């Protein structure tokens, strides 16, 4: 049996733990740069305002006191997510975190006698310990557990166990709502009269394969109750490491471009070191601002003289290329960096004859930088290339709540 646990309206729920004035109110959390609604409370949903609604369209209703908004407080959400996962690890045999607010769990054999009771106990524990209400669904496969979770979320106790014969439930579920069925597929599926999850489950394998290949067939098998999703190790080495962000306001200076790229390089390089990887090179890019959205990308590829994880070497390597991205009089929407050619150190490669500093010294430098930043807060030690000034290019988070679980100077206060 597999369980899927997810936090209800997770970002909003995190905000409510520390701001009780938001309880019972229509409130939404906004995306990066306070762009649009990405998490909505039930009260907000009840007003019929869809996910993704731009914030500027709702500002008047905020001013009138009808709606409340928060900027994305990823520091807080990340910590709350960590707490939930640690509880799940205590209560389940295995946990696969799927996203910041979702995890698959493999219940202990003792839970088999009564999965509902186990689920309710787990839900209650997370609610009391962390303060986040969760939905939990149990089923023999991940795809069915997703469906069970959606049903559970709408029940007062938050928990649902898929019945042995789920036909009735699958018959009522539009096929595009099944996990793993893409947005493009429903057209092809409709042509074959596959409209519900039940139709997909019962369609002939050849038909399914001709529509969506082996991936869709796997989804159909899962609907039949046969586990086909391999247990993925979501913590495994990533295929690529990147960092990019939109500017709070369109950027117009060479400094903003250079400093933001230096900062994202430093962040991505720290991630590289966390995974114990080296990068052979990187693509840096800048997107030109266009009022209707979109906008052309300017890019440069930089290959390092040898695979590296040292921020200073990368910054030296990209410096000239960054200048090449800048065109005077142009407004930029975002910049970013993507590393390629990831490898473990020790993999054979040609060394640079002219590299003066021994590798051990470099790794000591950045082990120290990472340790200092872990201890005293992200970004305490940084390269001067990231800029010492006001950093006007920083992400806009004007409605950011405190970070009461990760910053000593932002603790919740009690009177």
């Amino acid at each position: 049996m597999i369980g899927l646990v997810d936090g209800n309206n997770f970002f909003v729920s995190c905000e409510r733990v520390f701001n009780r004035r938001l309880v019972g109110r229509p409130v939404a959390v906004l995306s990066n740069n306070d762009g649009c609604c990405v998490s909505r409370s039930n009260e907000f949903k009840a007003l019929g305002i869809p996910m993704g609604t731009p914030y500027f369209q709702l500002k008047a209703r905020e001013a009138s006191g009808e709606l409340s908004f928060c900027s994305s407080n990823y520091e807080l959400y990340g910590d709350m997510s960590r707490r939930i996962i640690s509880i799940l690890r205590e209560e389940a045999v295995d946990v696969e975190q799927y996203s910041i607010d979702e995890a698959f769990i493999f219940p202990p054999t003792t839970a088999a006698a009564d999965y509902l009771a186990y689920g309710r106990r787990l839900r209650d524990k997370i609610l009391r310990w962390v303060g986040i209400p969760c939905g939990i669904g149990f089923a023999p496969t991940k795809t069915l557990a997703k469906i069970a979770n959606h049903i559970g979320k709408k029940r007062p106790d938050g928990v649902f166990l898929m019945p042995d014969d789920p036909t009735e439930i699958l018959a009522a579920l539009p096929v595009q709502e099944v996990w793993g069925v893409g947005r493009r597929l429903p057209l092809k599926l409709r042509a074959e009269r596959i409209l519900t999850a039940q139709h997909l489950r019962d369609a002939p394998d050849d038909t399914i394969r001709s529509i969506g290949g082996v991936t869709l067939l796997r989804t159909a098998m899962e609907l039949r109750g046969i586990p086909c999703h391999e247990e993925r190790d979501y913590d495994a080495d990533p295929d690529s490491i990147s960092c990019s962000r939109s500017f709070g306001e369109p950027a117009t200076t060479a400094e903003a471009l250079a400093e933001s790229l230096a900062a994202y390089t430093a962040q991505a390089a720290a991630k590289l070191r966390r995974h114990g990887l080296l990068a052979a090179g990187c693509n840096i890019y800048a997107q030109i601002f266009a009022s209707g959205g979109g906008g052309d990308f300017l890019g440069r590829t930089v290959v390092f003289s040898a695979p590296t994880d040292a921020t200073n070497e990368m910054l030296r390597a990209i410096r000239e290329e960054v200048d090449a991205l800048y065109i005077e009089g142009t407004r930029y929407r975002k910049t970013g960096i993507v590393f390629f050619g990831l490898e473990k150190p020790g993999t054979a490669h040609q060394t640079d004859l002219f590299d003066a500093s021994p590798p051990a010294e470099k790794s000591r430098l950045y082990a120290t930088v990472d340790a200092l930043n872990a201890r005293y807060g992200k970004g305490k030690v940084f390269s001067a290339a990231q800029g010492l000034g006001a950093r006007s290019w920083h992400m806009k988070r004007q409605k950011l709540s405190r970070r009461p679980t990760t910053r000593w100077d932002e603790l919740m206060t009690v009177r």
Partner: protein
Amino acid sequence: MSSKAKISGSVVAGFPSPAEQYLEPPLDLNELLVKRPAATYFVRVEGDSMVGAGIRDGDLLVVDRSLRPADGDVIIASVDGDFTVKTYRRDKDGVRLEPANPEYPVIPLRPGQELDYFGKVTACIHRFARKR
């Protein structure tokens, strides 16, 4: 806590250290004060409503959300949207939140009103030379 140092003696030459088998990890305040990290939060005190209970302005409180409140516990709860630290009282007169300072009023719970409980205070950290 997860990051506990492993200590093992290594002896290249000479006699083994007589202390080796007695080596233990150093004392860790987290181990003492934070029994359940997933349920533990730190909050900062503002004001002197609990000064009689030894909780002073600027103190740091360790709060465990997993513990249910019992009569006489110092707890954190939200009253009209603001968090407060008070002594939880539950007896024949009902439920109320009691300050430990005569200058502050007792906060009674109306019948049918549910306590918006945050967690139980398990420790108070008072620093003598603190910067705020």
